[in-house]
């Protein structure tokens, strides 16, 4: 694996849209070629070289490429979006859409991320060492295809409306979350190790939500089914299992109605 190191040399006046900042776009390129890759600021076309000093070179393919980004990226959007393989380490906070539509590889953000990160993620591993904003691992505005696969881990807290329209994959929030968790969810798994606020699993059709701490107010559409001992993300405990959202349409499988499940640690 070869490493490319980018260091921010100029802060964008507005926001820099760098959906080209991925191992896929860098693969097979040397530093001077990477500097010429397009990026966008507002309505103006620019290049990555305009904002970053670039050292090292990329591997022959995305899988053989590691990208390390230093400096303040808090005004940069779409970092790692659509990446399919390889590794990225961002030693900074990042702006919206970080790691959106990832299909593979590993993306680590050492700081906080803004809202709409990990949107429609299909695969790979996305680790956020700080906090995440709203709409984490949700669907794009208007879309009904949220997170499909992969693993997304937040070591801090997350905001509201996370995992909206989630269809698959796994999201672990080690801290607390705000309102609207897994709205319209039709598959996948959400683990909240801290507390959740309100409206957890609204219109939940399928999938599982685990909450280790408290839920401030439960949705009325959930019914207690049983208590069950489970191992969730390395923690063995007894969980109260709730079925829901009973106000929502539910599919049938082999004659049995499939419900979404909400587990509350006892």
């Amino acid at each position, binding site marked *: 694996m070869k490493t490319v190191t980018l260091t921010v040399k100029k802060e964008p006046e507005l926001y820099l849209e760098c*959906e080209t900042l991925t191992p896929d776009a860098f693969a097979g390129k040397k530093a001077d070629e990477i500097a010429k890759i397009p990026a*966008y600021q507002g*309505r103006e*076309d620019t290049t990555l070289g305009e904002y970053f000093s670039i050292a090292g070179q990329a591997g022959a393919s995305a899988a053989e490429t590691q990208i390390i980004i230093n400096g303040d990226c808090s005004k940069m959007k779409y970092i790692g979006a659509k990446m399919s393989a390889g590794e990225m380490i961002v030693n900074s906070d990042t702006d919206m859409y970080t790691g959106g539509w990832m299909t593979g590889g590993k993306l680590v953000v050492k700081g906080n991320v803004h809202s709409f990160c990990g949107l429609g993620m299909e695969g790979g591993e996305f680790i956020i060492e700080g906090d995440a904003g709203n709409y984490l691992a949700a*669907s*794009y*505005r*208007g*879309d*009904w295809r949220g997170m499909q696969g992969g693993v997304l881990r937040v070591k801090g807290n997350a905001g509201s409306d996370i995992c909206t329209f989630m269809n698959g994959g796994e999201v672990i929030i080690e801290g607390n979350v705000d309102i609207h968790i897994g709205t319209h969810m039709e598959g996948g798994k959400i683990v909240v190790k801290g507390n959740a606020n309100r409206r957890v699993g609204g219109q939940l059709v399928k999938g599982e939500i685990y909450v280790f701490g408290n839920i401030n107010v439960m949705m009325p559409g959930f019914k207690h089914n049983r208590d069950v001992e489970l191992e969730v993300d390395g923690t063995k405990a007894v969980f109260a299992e709730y079925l829901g959202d009973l106000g929502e*349409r539910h599919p049938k499988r082999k004659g049995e109605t499939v419900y979404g499940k909400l587990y509350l640690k006892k």
Partner: protein
Amino acid sequence: MSEYIIKNGHVFDPVQKIKGDKKDIAIKDGKIVEASEVSSSAKSINAKGKTIMAGAMEIHAHVAGPKVNAGRWFRPEDKIFDSHKKPGMTRIEGGKSIPTVFKTGYEYARMGYTFAMEAAMPPLYARHVHEEIHDTPIIDEAALPVFGNNWFILEYLKNREIENTAAYIAWILNQTKGYGVKIVNPGGTEAWAWGLNCLTINDPVPYFEITPAEIVTGLMEANEYLGLPHSVHIHQNDLGNPGNYKVTLDTLRLAEKVKPKNDFGRDQVMHSTHLQFHAYGGESFANIESKAKEVMDYVNSNEAITFDTGNVTLDETTTMTADGPFEHHLCSLNHLKWFNVDVELETAAGIVPYVYSPNVSVNAIQWAIGLELALYAKDPMRCFITTDHPNAGPFTRYPRVMSWLMCAKTRNERLNTFKNADKIIDRTTLAEIDREISLYELAAMTRAGPAKSLGLSKDFGGLKPGMNADIAIYNINPEKLPTKGEDYEKAFSNVAYLFKDGKICVKDGTVVDNGQKKTFWVDVKVNPNKQVRHDVVEKFLKYYSVNEGNYSVPDDYAPHQHIISLDATHA
């Protein structure tokens, strides 16, 4: 104005019956002229090894107006990753199934189209339609106001008052700057306001006590009474449901009762739109099958009908129609989001996103039916290619549809690689057809045919001297035709040249000029009609949410008009 002479190209023009012969085409003052009429300073374009056709004409697409814009509002995901501007003079081009007005104009032009008909204009929101039409670059456009569920029409036709119906149509065309008579799910959309639908042509409309058959026949008679350039343009009852081909045949047979009467060289009395959605057999989606053969046997035998295909392109798209009940039905099938609106006394609309997947048998069967219709058509002058944009797919897929029609190998490859290929082959007849549409037939299906059906054949759809200089030149060499469908697709997606009104607007697939687009509409003079005047005043006082004075489309909403005036005053 500049003069051009296009040399050495292969010309395909059904108007002059030219089937690929080498012929020079000369342009002067925005018109096609004899080669001898241009001066020696005319710019010469070498079209050696290329195909020359008139500018293509879109007969049915939803490209402007409140319904299209509502689709843009509620589908922001349709524009994702489209926010960057391409180099050159074009603006940002956003949207896949519901593109911005700019992208709409550019994309049609890049494919060699010079005219598009907006297929459903709610009269009350005609101003919005014209604002969007005005902002769509390059291509000429017109819009068809919808009449099939309008209270005035239902009341007049209940009493068989053809003259009043005609006078009201003339008034609406004048108020809305409309082009002709569109019918969407006759009676059914009004019934939808009562939570009902009309699924055959004999289902009575609640309250009005009139049947779809009476509405369609009455509107055809009124259309011919006025002698409009286009015939009635109908989206039939029971769209999209298995077994609907019987309703389709019943509706098509209504055309036998009416004779065409106009001064525009139009021979049909009914244009049946997106026929693919109306040619289904079977009793349910579990056993849906193609009835394209049965439908086309009838269409081929009745010269008073033209139709467009409504080809499914197997893409993610946004369905939108004035057929309100259908959209509700569709939403209950795919559980995606649903938009519904009622337009006062006139019509309604619904919108639902839809993904046509090659892995879903029903979608693959729909795909096959659309192609079968075109391949069974004996007269290419009466069969036009559409995708009912964006309902069966975005119009930007026309080149791919053409490649399926023109290259049997490409078509069969697609057919044989469906997930449930055996089932699709069993339920359709596409595998038995080896016909390949020729360039000459394509010119009829996309140029001369639609022009004739729209009553525009005097100036458009051909390359005869005197006609408008709307010309598309493609990188297709008829002496060495492409063997792969994707080569056709590439050539039809990017014209070598597009002339609009004698000006080069697209060169090598790149837009170089925004042209001077025009809005076509039909102004009909009728006898003064006290009854209709009285009814208009009364309905605006009693029911409409706007005053009559705020209803019409002022001239500054359509600054570049091409008005077709006709006199339908009967002694």
